[in-house]
């Protein structure tokens, strides 16, 4: 048996456009997904994540490259012979069958004897916490319940890999949060590899062991949630995952892994260097997350001075927009740990900003 549940080796998929040209939906991506991993494909719509998932399921065939499931090359194996199952975005529950009929369908296809089917369907419905719903029709269920049936229908086949295509997209926020935790819980219980497609960065960060951030058919960065959030390798990734500040500048010096950056010709800032092959004078982007910046009312050593232009109270935090130079503004988030009247600063206040240079990243422009 292979070390990996799913491997993609230089996989591309192009579709013909109406003008007869070929457009690449997926462009030479390579991924190795481990057994039992919760792996997310994250990116904006049209980035190729769903196409990638559909190629693993077998609904699309790659125009180039190879897909292996459990070490076995899939070639042109049809979907019904692959040991993967999918939970569709719209659930795709069979409207003319009951919940039981839906969940049992895949087992019937495998010609499992009916007492065993009954047992396994009951077990699957218990797993997704829908016991006793066997005789309902999909139309009689709420969105969240339909989602669970779709999940049970796929899991009951005990696939090597479960594919999930934005399964929570149609649910409201509160239910989503609940289902995120529950999915994670179910995955731990069944120990199956999950490949999860989403455009919701928060969802991906919450649930995944590893995330592949995709854009325009390519994987831009692959790593754990913390790696992706803390050390984005490109402006796209930094921008797509969470909120962040970007300051255009040029590199002045690099010493002991610490870089000094000149922004707007006047502002000197320091940051943990990203790459070693940076040259002096090179145009770069300095990025720092809003919650990593502290605000002070008096001048501190190495602090950047600024003025509060705008502030928004958003419950847990207050979000400040601070003007630090003629052309540059930084967003700062400060947790509201004290009582409401203690919320320190007002519009127009002069403030001083500090951050740990290690949390500021330098990206090549």
């Amino acid at each position, binding site marked *: 048996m292979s070390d990996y549940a799913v491997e993609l080796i230089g996989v591309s998929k192009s579709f013909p456009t109406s003008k007869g040209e070929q457009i690449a939906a997926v462009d030479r991506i390579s991924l190795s997904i481990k057994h039992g991993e919760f792996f997310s494909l994250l990116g904006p719509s049209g980035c190729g994540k769903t196409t990638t998932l559909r190629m693993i399921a077998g*609904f699309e065939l790659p125009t180039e490259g190879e897909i292996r499931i459990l070490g076995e090359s899939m070639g042109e194996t049809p979907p019904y012979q692959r040991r993967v*199952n999918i939970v569709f975005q719209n659930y795709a529950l069979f409207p003319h069958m009951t919940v039981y009929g839906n969940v049992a*369908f895949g087992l019937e296809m495998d010609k499992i004897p009916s007492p065993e089917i009954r047992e396994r369907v009951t077990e699957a419905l218990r797993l997704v916490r829908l016991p006793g719903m066997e005789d309902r029709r999909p139309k009689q269920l709420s969105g969240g319940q339909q989602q669970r049936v779709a999940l049970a229908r*796929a899991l009951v086949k005990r696939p090597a890999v479960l594919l999930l295509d934005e399964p929570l997209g149609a649910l409201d926020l509160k239910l989503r949060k609940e289902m995120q935790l529950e999915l994670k819980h179910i995955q731990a219980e069944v120990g199956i590899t999950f490949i999860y497609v989403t455009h919701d960065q928060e969802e991906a960060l919450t649930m995944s062991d590893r995330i592949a951030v995709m854009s325009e058919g390519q994987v831009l960065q692959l790593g754990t949630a913390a790696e992706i959030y803390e050390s984005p390798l490109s402006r796209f990734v930094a921008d797509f995952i969470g909120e962040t500040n970007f300051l255009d500048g040029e590199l002045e010096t690099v010493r002991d892994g610490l870089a000094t950056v000149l922004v707007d010709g006047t502002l000197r800032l320091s940051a943990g260097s990203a790459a070693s092959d940076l040259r002096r004078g090179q145009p770069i982007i300095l990025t720092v997350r809003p919650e990593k910046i502290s605000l002070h009312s008096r001048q501190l050593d190495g602090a950047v001075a600024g003025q509060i232009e705008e502030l928004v109270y958003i419950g847990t935090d207050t979000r400040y927009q601070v003007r630090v130079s003629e052309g540059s503004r930084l967003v700062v988030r400060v947790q509201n740990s004290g009582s409401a009247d203690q919320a320190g600063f007002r519009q127009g206040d002069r403030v001083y900003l500090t951050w740990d240079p290690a949390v500021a990243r330098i990206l090549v422009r």
Partner: protein
Amino acid sequence: MIAGCATRRGRGSLLLRLGKTALGANAWLIFAFLYIPILVLIVFSFNDSRSVAHWTGFSMDWYLRLFSNEPLLRAARNSLVIAGVSTLAATAMGTLTALGMDRYPFRLRSSFDAILYLPIVIPEIVMGISLLLFFNLAFFPLLQALLHFRMTLGVPTITVGHIAFNIPFVYVIVRARLVGFDRTLEQAAQDLGANEWRTFWRITFPLLLPGILGGALMAFTLSLDDFLVTAFTAGTASPTMPLYIYSLVRRGVTPEINALSTVLLAASMGLVVISLVLQRRR
């Protein structure tokens, strides 16, 4: 100003109410228009004299006569055979065509689509005479020359014509059902281990069935009712029900026709009920 507003609103609602009353009156007048002739027809089918306007007493005689009317029964049998066969054939071909046109792009697809709609749009009489000419001047002579087989107009030629005009109707109805068809259901079935064959019979076919049955019902009704195409492809030996009724109606009005019409009305009502049951199942 305020007063002006008030009167205006008052006038508006009065207009609205008048409009509502007018709508209702119009509708019930139309229903009267549609149903009075039919009701008169039914009532006088039970009259015990030959009059279709003077009620002289209740009788079932006219109905009893129908059942001993040999030519009528033959016509009824012809109609049912033709409707049955043409419905089966047209439903099978129309459904396959709808599936093919919906799923597989091929060359000439748009021109074929036009051919499929044309029989619905062109006047029926044109289709009738075209089949008459085709059979008499091309098909029969060719058959005679090649196989030395003599064929004349009759039940087979009527059936051929009915299949031709029914295919487009079945096609349109099934195709409409396919437009709203969620293809991910088929993908889900395949993902769960069903091959193409089982996916079709377990998922696609049951979900299309109301559309297919609706198309079949339409075809059956159209075939039973058809007069023009039938008239031109029937020849003289084998009249269908509409041809038989037509020959009676041309001669005048009699309670016999009333009774026959009432039977057909009851049959149509039966079909309406079936179609409603089918719709409810959707």
